[in-house]
């Protein structure tokens, strides 16, 4: 048996045996090696077919073959070969394990007969798509690029927007078998150093075979969710949103093979803002923001409140007495609401699993037939459908998908509580909702900041879309080292 500290041997025959044994060369068709005879010694080039860029490898082989024509000094073979590995990223490794890890990530591994180290040349080309606008974060006007599954491209997209020399991308490999690249991203003189250290420590402690679901699996290691449905990190697929958060002092976590980037720390109020508000004039942005707040509020409160008014009409002020179904339905109203809510959930799940061509037809069926026929059959009354639909639209207006699902769960509980206990159920339910969020903590950050604990400055920034020239300081919740966004403000104070 070999240990992980096995050192590369000088004899190339021993290397070949070891690699063949470990990698299954001859069994896997895509891992193989090419031998070139240079100045009477063997040089082996190991590669993985799908990950190495053929043109770069051919270029290197060409240059190495030409050694036979131009050079003669056999004793300096190692230096000569190293000089001719034409690539800007070349490293040397001394152990088999490091070399194999690099090989399986797509890099070229070069063994020279008589030399006990291997050269690693970065000739990677990962298959993947180009930057496209993410589905869930569209804006009407603005940049349309999005992160991709390739972590190198993502760093490029970010660096383009933050050309600061203090921007750091620290790389950590996670997972015994997957060895996924995870990068912690922050701006060195703004972000809170203790937060960066906490995150790095947590990532390094992750002990698992592999993180197949990339960012989501890693998130579960970083912030233990327990039984809370609320999202404790924010995801984004837009480089401009990521850059904006870096400027505020957040720490980002990028995971290879996933276009979603994790933003920490995060609060409830981060999940209800969207890049779109910053693409319009401040007043329009504030208007859009308020409409969105109304949508989110109605996705939680509208149905339970309406149910209360239906079950106990004495709470209705006389001006609003039209609310409430006119006729007795066959099914109790509370059950109708729960059924309608579940129905919308079915539709959503079905829509995700259906291919696009079929989903248009399905949408028509759902909207027209099911609604109409359910009413005619007597299962639902029309008002239920109206309010459930408004609620569902409100929940889709939530910028963060994870939060909209959490709110939906809370809404169902509120509906059940109201149906069982009437007004006390609703009021106590809402109080518990708020207290639960106050109790939630995300990586040393209170979740319901800046409402509870209250911070008037930050609250103003949430209620109004402040124009960029007036944004002088960074939000205090990230504990930035450097509080002023605009350098000349420092001297003016």
């Amino acid at each position, binding site marked *: 048996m070999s240990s992980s500290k096995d050192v590369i041997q000088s004899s190339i025959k021993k290397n070949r045996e070891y690699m063949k044994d470990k990698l299954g060369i001859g069994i896997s068709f895509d891992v193989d090696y090419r031998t070139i005879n240079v100045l009477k010694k063997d040089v082996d080039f190991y590669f993985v077919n799908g990950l190495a860029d053929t043109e770069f490898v051919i270029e290197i082989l060409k240059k190495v073959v030409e050694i036979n024509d131009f050079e003669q000094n056999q004793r300096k073979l190692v230096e000569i070969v190293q000089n001719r590995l034409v690539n800007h990223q070349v490293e040397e490794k001394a152990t088999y394990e490091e070399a194999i890890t690099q090989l399986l990530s797509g890099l070229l591994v070069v063994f020279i007969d008589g030399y006990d180290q291997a050269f690693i040349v970065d000739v990677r080309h990962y298959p993947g798509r180009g930057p496209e606008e993410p589905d869930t974060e569209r804006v009407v006007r603005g940049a349309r690029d999005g992160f991709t599954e390739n972590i190198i491209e993502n760093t490029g997209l970010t660096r383009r927007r933050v050309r600061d020399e203090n921007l750091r991308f620290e790389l950590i490999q996670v997972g015994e078998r997957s060895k996924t690249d995870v990068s912690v991203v922050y701006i060195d003189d703004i972000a809170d150093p203790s937060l960066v250290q906490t995150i790095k420590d947590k990532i390094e402690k992750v002990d698992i075979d592999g993180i197949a679901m990339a960012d989501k699996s890693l998130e579960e290691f970083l*912030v*233990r*969710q*327990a039984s*809370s449905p609320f999202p*404790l990190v924010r995801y984004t697929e837009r480089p401009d949103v990521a850059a904006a958060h870096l400027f505020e002092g957040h720490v980002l976590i990028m995971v290879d093979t996933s276009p979603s980037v994790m933003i920490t720390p995060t609060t409830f109020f981060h999940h209800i803002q969207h890049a779109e508000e910053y693409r319009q004039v401040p007043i329009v942005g504030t208007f859009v923001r308020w409409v969105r707040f109304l949508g989110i509020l109605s996705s939680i409160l509208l149905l339970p409140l309406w149910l209360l008014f239906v079950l106990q009409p*004495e*709470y*209705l*002020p006389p001006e609003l007495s039209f609310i409430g179904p006119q006729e007795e339905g066959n099914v109790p109203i509370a059950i109708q609401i729960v059924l309608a809510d579940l129905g919308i959930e079915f539709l959503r799940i079905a829509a995700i699993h259906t291919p696009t061509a079929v989903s248009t037809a399905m949408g028509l069926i759902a909207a027209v037939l099911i609604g109409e026929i359910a009413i005619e059959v007597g299962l639902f009354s029309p008002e239920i459908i109206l309010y459930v639909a408004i609620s569902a639209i409100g929940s889709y207006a939530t910028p963060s998908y994870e939060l909209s699902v959490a709110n939906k769960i809370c809404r169902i509980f509120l509906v059940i509580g109201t149906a069982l206990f009437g*007004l*006390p159920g609703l*009021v*106590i339910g*809402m*109080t518990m909702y*708020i*207290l639960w969020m*106050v*109790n*939630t*903590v*995300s*990586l*040393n*950050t*209170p979740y319901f900041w800046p*409402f*509870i*604990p*209250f*911070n*008037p400055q930050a609250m103003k920034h949430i209620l109004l879309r402040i124009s960029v020239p007036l944004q002088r300081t960074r939000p*205090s*919740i990230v*504990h930035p080292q450097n509080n002023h966004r605009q350098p000349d403000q420092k001297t003016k104070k």
Partner: protein
Amino acid sequence: MENHSSIIMKSIITGMFGAFIFGSIFSFTYFLTFTDLSHASFTLRPFIQDSWVDQFWGEIVSLIIIILLGAIPGYLYYATLKKLTGWLPGFVYGLVIWGIVYIGIGLLLPNIPPLNELGSDTIVTSVCLAVLYGVFVGYTISYDYHGERLDRKMSQNNE
């Protein structure tokens, strides 16, 4: 750590903002007849009997009054409980405030029915709002006092 006078100012402002927010919500629930009493029942109605007091403008004037009065719970929490962490002290503080206002002051004022005659709706609504006010004020002040950081025990809860 910030100096004490600025934290005292912040506590008072927090108390006043909290009174504004939860006072407005309380007025809204009064409009929806979730509760038979509103803060105006404590501030204006015992003293002035005109008809405007029962409607919209009464609520507004009373709201201004309790915003000013809100400075007191803010300062009191700072003076006594600021060193405690978490939201639970605020929760208890809110209950205490409710007790003082509804039972203590309520007994003195002629137009407030005694506790056993207040409907369960009124009690539940007012207790919940008072508790939220208490958590609002308490958690904010203790968070500010600890330099805007949570202590280790609090932050281990979710990790």
